[in-house]
């Protein structure tokens, strides 16, 4: 509970109409491998303290990573000084009141104490599997633990500990690659051999890739690809700030059926497959919230500032005050369906399977038109079967259009890129150009 003490100490030094203090401790390690050997192996131990002081509805924020009493006193003084210099905010700043939080239990001890030796052993196990197949491996095996404490002058006190681990592997042959990953709060669930087999399978099956012409193709998107598209939708348009700034695809379409009725998206802070969070970065309690219900957008997410400004209820999606106010959903879950990936493939006469995307970027936020490349496993489907690997292609299309065309959703959902998602089959994805590998 040391960081809670640090938070309380900093709070005691700060003076204002309202004050909150956020302290984040992070102990993180990562073993990175490439060309089938470990080339980077790092460890970080850090504490960050953020003090927000509100005086006469003027706000000041100061941060430090030095936690001796003098430094805490200084950061509290600095936040007050900045508040005095800030113009008065026309929207009343109302920090959350004390609340009860859902108990989430202690983080997994084995994950907290994972050693560099254990991570190296896992890499060795995977390399020993891939070498005889003529594949080289690259990737990262990370583990981290930490804690978050938030206190404010209303008497709010929130404290949470967490731990997680993630293994990501890319297997490569001369002319192909495949990737796989697994994230978990319980490191015992990571099975390095299973992860490398998944990546290696895609690399082997996409050898000697052939070319197809740009155009529209029926498509199976693996859960990695779905998560990457949903992540873009989240970052660019599921926030009250995006709505206020006229760039939210979701706010523009609340109540209208714009996606397939097979798509339901929620923000579930207690989904055990993601990083469980009982409160947001202001200490406001979190709860499950519908974002899209059977293809119909429901609502964007709010923090205390946007809740006061708009009269909407606070949904518990504040980021740290230093972010400048951009509420964000951090536990997005796309609900599963009833099909398997093989069943989806079997229904396609001519189409493609996209394993994942790379370097995607939104071109037009309201239409969710994006561009990006395929990567690590693009496959040609003919007559219900995968017949070969494909050279990578550039997609330029609307995510809304792709998800409007979804006809099947996988019966399993998995975590990737901060999103829990299933695979999906859509009537069409538009490839705009080719590349050379």
């Amino acid at each position, binding site marked *: 509970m040391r960081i809670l003490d640090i938070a309380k100490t900093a709070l005691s030094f700060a003076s204002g109409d309202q004050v909150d203090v956020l302290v984040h401790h992070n102990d993180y390690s990562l073993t990175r491998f*490439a060309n089938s050997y470990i080339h*980077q192996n790092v460890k970080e131990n850090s504490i960050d303290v953020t003090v927000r002081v509100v005086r006469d509805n003027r706000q000041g924020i100061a941060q430090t990573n030095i936690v001796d009493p003098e430094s805490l006193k200084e950061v509290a003084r600095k936040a007050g000084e900045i508040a005095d210099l800030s113009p008065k905010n026309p929207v009343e700043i109302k920090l959350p009141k004390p609340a009860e939080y859902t108990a989430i239990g202690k983080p997994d001890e084995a994950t907290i104490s994972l050693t560099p030796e254990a991570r190296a052993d896992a890499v060795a196990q995977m390399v020993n599997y891939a070498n005889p197949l003529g594949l080289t491996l690259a990737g990262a095996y990370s583990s981290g633990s930490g804690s978050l404490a938030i206190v404010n002058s209303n008497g709010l006190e929130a404290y949470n500990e967490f731990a997680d681990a993630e293994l990501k592997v890319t297997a490569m042959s001369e002319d192909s690659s495949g990737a796989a990953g697994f994230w978990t709060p319980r490191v015992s669930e990571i099975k390095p051999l299973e992860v490398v087999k998944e990546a290696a399978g895609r690399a082997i099956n996409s050898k000697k890739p052939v070319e197809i012409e740009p155009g529209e193709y029926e498509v199976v998107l693996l859960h990695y690809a779905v998560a990457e598209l949903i992540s873009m939708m989240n970052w660019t348009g599921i926030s009250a700030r995006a709505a206020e700034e006229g760039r939210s695809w979701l706010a523009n379409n609340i109540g209208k059926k714009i996606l397939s009725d097979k798509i339901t998206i929620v923000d579930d802070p207690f989904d055990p497959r993601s990083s469980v969070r009982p409160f947001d970065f202001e200490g406001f309690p979190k709860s499950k919230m519908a974002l899209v219900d059977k293809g119909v957008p429901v609502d964007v997410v709010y923090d205390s500032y946007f809740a006061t400004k708009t009269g909407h209820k606070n949904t518990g999606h504040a980021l740290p005050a230093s972010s400048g106010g951009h509420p964000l959903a951090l536990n997005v879950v796309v609900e599963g369906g009833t099909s398997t990936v093989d069943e989806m493939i079997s229904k396609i006469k001519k189409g493609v399977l996209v394993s994942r995307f790379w370097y995607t970027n939104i071109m037009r936020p309201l239409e969710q038109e994006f561009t990006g490349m395929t990567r690590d496993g693009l496959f040609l489907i003919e007559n219900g079967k995968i017949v070969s690997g494909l050279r990578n292609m550039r997609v330029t299309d609307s995510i809304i259009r792709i998800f409007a065309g979804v006809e099947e959703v996988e019966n399993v959902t998995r975590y990737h890129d901060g999103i829990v998602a299933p695979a999906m089959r859509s009537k069409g994805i538009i490839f705009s150009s080719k590349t050379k590998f």
Partner: protein
Amino acid sequence: MKDLVERALRKARLEGASYGDIRLITETSEHVSAKDGVIKAIVSDSSVGFGIRVIADGAWGFSSSSTVTPDEIDKVAAEAVAIAKASAKVTHDPVKLAEIKIHVDDVPSGISDDPRKVPLEKKVALALDATRSMEAQGVIARNANVYNSYQEKHFGSTEGAMIRQEKIESGAGMEAYASDGKTFVKRSYPQSFGGDFARLGWSFVENMDLPGNGKRVSQEVLALLKAKPCPKGRKDIVIDGAQMALQVHESLGHPTELDRVFGTEAGYAGKSFMMPDMLNKLQYGSKIVNITADATIPGAFGGFAYDDEGVKAKRVFLVKDGLFVGYLDSREDAAKLGMKPMGAMRASSWARIPIVRMVSVNLEPGDLTFDQLIGGVQDGIFMATTLSWSIDDHRLNFQFSAEIGWEIKNGKLGEMIRTPSYTGITPEFWNSCDGIGNRDLWHVWGVPNCGKGEPSQIMHVSHGTAPTRFRNIEVGVGS
């Protein structure tokens, strides 16, 4: 500080490191952001910490901490060595470092108009004035930000290096949004990504004259809503300096990073098409294309006196007369090619290990005026300010779009075009370059958000560019 540096190196050796270095960093920053005439946040940040990098049993280890005490230095040094020994369980050839000249030096910031001495009220007033200057009916949101930072870094190595460097950074920018409910557009000044940045003082910010540009920005964002969409097909294009910075960054900066070439970023940031057997053979661009990596440019956001391996900053050619001639490298990667390191190893903080990064990577100026660049186009588009960007993981197929464009008809700028886009394959694109703006049009753009590495490292880099002309390029991709 010197005592702590020496203590870390002693401890690393004692634990069995054959090489070790430490970076001990103190940083402060101040960031004022305003929106619609109201302050969104004023954040003052201070940070201290150190990272120790070692080679033991022929492999790398790295550990870091924000607790700067002798005991913690000992603990972290021992951790770094233990981690290196774990790395050695799955190793390749033992790590070899190219030899370098060892430096003992002290490098002050050299900035006379230190932005830390500028009253906060002045920065607040500037950010507010900037958002007010963009006020106009139909403009939905107006954002502005003002930034400055200070860093003191001590570097020491078991080879005897002992370098103290100071760095002061300043930056600012603003943007306006508009939407008619169906189309969303934005206009930024002076560039996207929060504006322009440099290792310079307060006058760099003042010279941008944010408020003086607000009216134009708001007029342009409103005009964009009614502007015609980008035509589809092949056109000659002229790209402004700000978007050229991104073009250089993505299609030349990243693929010349030697760690990518050797596959050590393959699991994340990707590889490169610019392999060593192409060095001095690949005609990367047309004869007028000269691209340098130059960390010595005064004030350049990607510049420094020494990189994070203690290599003194240099100016080298990556592309000379269109020919691919050089890489961005590290001591380890340079040794693999038998080259002398050019000094591009950089870490984004004390908690991160140095990796190969861009410095200031620059398209050297040509000899044309802006009127000559435009005047040489019969039917084309002039594109300005980055909007979206994407490139494949070998850095070949790219597609970029700009916030704004104008038709070029018979050598003159014509009607406005909304969010023009263009696409191409890197060497084909650069070989179609037939005109580069002269030194009067050349500016070193600061880029604050170059991402690479795991765990993620956001690096400050820069690109000197001028408006540049390309022939017969595919434009108007998408709707």
